[in-house]
């Protein structure tokens, strides 16, 4: 009965990445059996308020730990600080809080998550190598205020620089499929000679692939990020070139494990607990 309670705060459950993560977390809780999991998500990726509300509600419920993937790297600093002040162990995973904002609020908190910039560069490099130097590419970005979105854009830009690609356009679609579909459809019309697309996550990559199918184009290469189940077949049949697996289920499970260790009296986490990434291409 006295099991510790872990509140897991995710982002948009419309994204398969988090759907998948949720399942993984539930399985993990069932498997370990020594803690109680309470998980919440958001309506959409820009709904910061509801994420803050979720944290506040967890404070009220007096959970032992909060494991959170912030929607905005700056906005979530204060509520997290409040949770820590309430004696709750907080683990920040997936999206790192903003370093400056943390410093300013006097908050020290470790980050559990992948090297987003490095990961994006892996995908970008794969694309560049397939297309060759000087190829025309575009980037579809995540939420401007989210640190991992920034890191992934930088990673793609690293590839652009290294392989002297021609970057035609770079726009946000706020991590969402439909928006990416619209944004990219028109990018395609504006730049019919486009050769490659770097999407900052798979949700948006799927939107891009659908747009390509509708336009009847199979000559444009797409890379994504996340390795959600839905892109598996796309990589197999060539509609996508590559994605980066960041092992979302494991990431969440690790973050929970780490949180529980601290709750059980272990040492505070520090710095960056890097999690695994891996380039996924056609086998």
């Amino acid at each position, binding site marked *: 009965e006295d099991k510790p309670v872990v509140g897991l705060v995710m982002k948009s*459950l*419309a994204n*398969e990445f988090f*759907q998948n993560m*949720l399942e993984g977390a539930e399985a993990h809780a069932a498997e370990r059996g020594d803690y109680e999991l309470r998980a919440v998500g958001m309506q*959409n990726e820009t709904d910061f308020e509801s994420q803050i509300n979720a944290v506040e509600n967890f404070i009220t419920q007096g959970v032992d730990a909060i494991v959170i993937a912030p929607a905005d790297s700056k906005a979530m600093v204060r509520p997290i600080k409040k949770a820590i002040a309430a004696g709750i162990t907080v683990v920040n995973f997936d999206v790192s809080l903003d370093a400056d904002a943390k410093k300013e609020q006097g908050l020290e908190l470790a980050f559990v998550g992948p090297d987003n910039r490095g990961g994006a560069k892996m995908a970008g490099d794969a694309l560049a190598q397939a297309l060759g130097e000087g190829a025309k590419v575009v980037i579809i970005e995540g939420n401007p205020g989210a640190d991992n979105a920034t890191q992934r854009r930088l990673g793609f830009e690293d590839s652009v620089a290294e392989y002297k690609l021609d970057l035609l*356009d770079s*726009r*946000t679609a706020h991590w*969402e*499929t*439909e*928006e990416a579909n*619209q*944004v990219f*459809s*028109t*990018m395609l*019309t*504006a730049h*019919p000679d486009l050769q490659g697309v770097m999407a900052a996550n798979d949700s948006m990559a799927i939107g891009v692939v*659908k747009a390509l*199918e*509708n*336009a009847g184009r199979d000559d444009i290469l797409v890379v994504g990020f996340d390795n959600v*189940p*839905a892109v598996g*077949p796309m990589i197999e049949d060539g509609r996508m070139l590559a994605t980066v697996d960041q092992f979302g289920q494991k990431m969440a499970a690790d973050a929970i494990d780490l949180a529980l260790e601290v709750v059980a009296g272990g040492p505070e986490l520090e710095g960056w607990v890097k999690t695994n990434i891996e380039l996924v291409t056609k086998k």
Partner: protein
Amino acid sequence: MTDHTTNTPNEGISMHRVIERIGIHNISLLVALVGLLVIFGVLRGDVFFSTRNLLNIGMGVAILGVLAISQTGVIVSGGLDISVGSIVGLTTVATAMTIQATDMAGLGLLAGIVIGGLAGLVNGLLITYGRINAVIVTLGTMAIFRGVAFILSNGQSISIFNDSFRWIGTGRILGLPAPIWVLIAVAIGFYTFMHKSIVGRNYYAIGGNPIVARLSGLKIPNYRVAIYVVSGVMAGVGGILLAARTGSGQPISGSDGLELEAITAAFLGGCAMQGGRGTVVGALLGVAIIGVLNNGMILTAVPTFYQMLAKGTLLILAVFLAEYRLNKN
């Protein structure tokens, strides 16, 4: 009847009527649309008028068009249906699951239409017999239908591998993509229904003044329920198109403000909030304006924020043209 003085007002009235026949409002919308085409044509003449881009626009608005047209029917009757986006999501799931289970495209279509119709029936019954404001009911059912979709699909997207079904989303007839044909069919069907049929006329009566309509002996409850069922079925058609296009059923699809865009197109097209006014042609023009705007904006590659500024301004200008001229007359 024969002398000069009596004919003057008469002539005034019939002149007025000639314009009215085409629809002053529609003429103005057409002007707005042509204006947009000219602007984008000049700015991006290279690609804007390419067949591919025009088809892109068409594909982009096919689903929206279906929804905007049926929304026009609902608004004319004095109601509003905010739940259509959710119904689209729900029907993509229902269709995908049916096809996954049976691999029969026809059953998938049936499932989409039946589920859409049932959802609409729920709306209609609650609004008519529960006597609740349509906005509230459909605001509520918007959440409910979305929830049902998630529960059915367990939050996952469901792939559709049936090729004949997917053809609905990607196939072409006479060079035009199938969804555009669907839109054309829906438009013609609704045009006949709203403007040529007796039942359609009665919707204008009910929306224009329900008290009068009742005193004239119309059975308003039946009409009300029916229009929401129609709206649900049309959302089902939208769902089928979406599922066929994306080759999957996704509980989340249709949640990105599709209903708002449909309502916007209807209002742009001349619907009045109070009901009793609005036309199918107007709705189509509204949809075209929105589609061209969205497409042209990205083509001209102005930064996102200027795009939004421009989109907002153009929307206002479009109604300004349409309504102000109307008021002046």
